[in-house]
């Protein structure tokens, strides 16, 4: 592999072979011991937290959340790769989600939802009058900073 690398650099007429170093960043072995302990401690902490949280969440909420995550990931994948979603293996999407689910936040979901996705709110009892009344009564509580963050 080293030969191939040097040959490639030679073909580019590059001067980089003479600067080649296997490792330009050095760090002590003591650091790695500390890092390993830290990782194992964080894993144990996460394990305990997950157990506590799992008692408090209804299964149907988890189902909806999972569906949303799959929807968002599918749209992300479609946009990034610029190829039809049916060409991406579902196992790849699931693997991606398993690893990166923590990186999604509410705004990510909201960005990729269309009006149709809100059809679950069809049976809402909130009317336009309710909204107008709410705004009339609470307008004083909304400051300029809140509005700037929204728009």
């Amino acid at each position, binding site marked *: 592999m080293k030969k191939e690398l040097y040959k490639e650099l030679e073909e580019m007429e590059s*001067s980089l072979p003479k600067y080649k170093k296997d490792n330009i*960043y050095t760090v002590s072995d003591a*650091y790695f011991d500390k890092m*390993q302990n830290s990782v194992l401690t964080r894993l144990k902490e996460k394990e305990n937290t997950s157990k506590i949280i799992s008692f408090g969440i209804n299964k149907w909420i988890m189902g909806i959340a999972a569906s949303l995550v799959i929807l968002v990931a599918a749209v992300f994948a479609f946009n990034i790769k610029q190829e039809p979603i049916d060409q991406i293996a579902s*196992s790849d999407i699931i693997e991606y989600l398993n690893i990166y689910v923590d990186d999604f936040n509410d705004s990510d979901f909201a960005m990729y939802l269309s009006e149709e996705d809100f059809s679950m709110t069809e049976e809402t009892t909130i009317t336009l009058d309710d909204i107008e009344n709410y705004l009339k009564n609470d307008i004083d509580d909304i400051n300029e900073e809140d509005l700037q963050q929204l728009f």
Partner: protein
Amino acid sequence: MKITDEQIIKLIKNDKTLNAGFKMLMDAYQQRLYHHIRSILGNHEDTDDVLQNTFIKVFRNINNFEGRSKLFTWLYRIATNEATTFLKKNMRKNSFMESSEMGDFTNSLKSEEGSDGEFVKEMLKKALEELPPKQKAIFSLRYFEEMNYSDMSEITGTSVGALKASYHHAVKKIENYIKQVVIYQ
């Protein structure tokens, strides 16, 4: 005797040998992943954060690793994603050094670093900082890790052709940077 990736995965997937397996996986890959992440991020503190997050994601998802790809490409893929995402989130607007700054930089290198070897290391580190996140990852995988393009393609999700072009471009940028440093030396 060197333990194989398959043996490590077997240990991790058995509850009784889980911790020993995790430790072996970290022992086997921590230095290479550290170096790769550091090439992308530049400083030790951020690298430490990202390396820990990488191992945590690996451990939490190891049961989903089906062996369709090699273990090391899977690990590098997670590390590369973590590092480039971190960098994009915390990106400072970098610009090429002005001539006067370049002179200051070479002077500081001369006074701080003793040998030519150290000078070259520092110069490469600084040159790497000038590349965009993904190009840093590509340069690191090829130049330092000496990886083939097929594995790199699996890790970065980029075609071999695009990788070759990006690497070529990165080499030229780094060379130009080194030339500037040498001129001001």
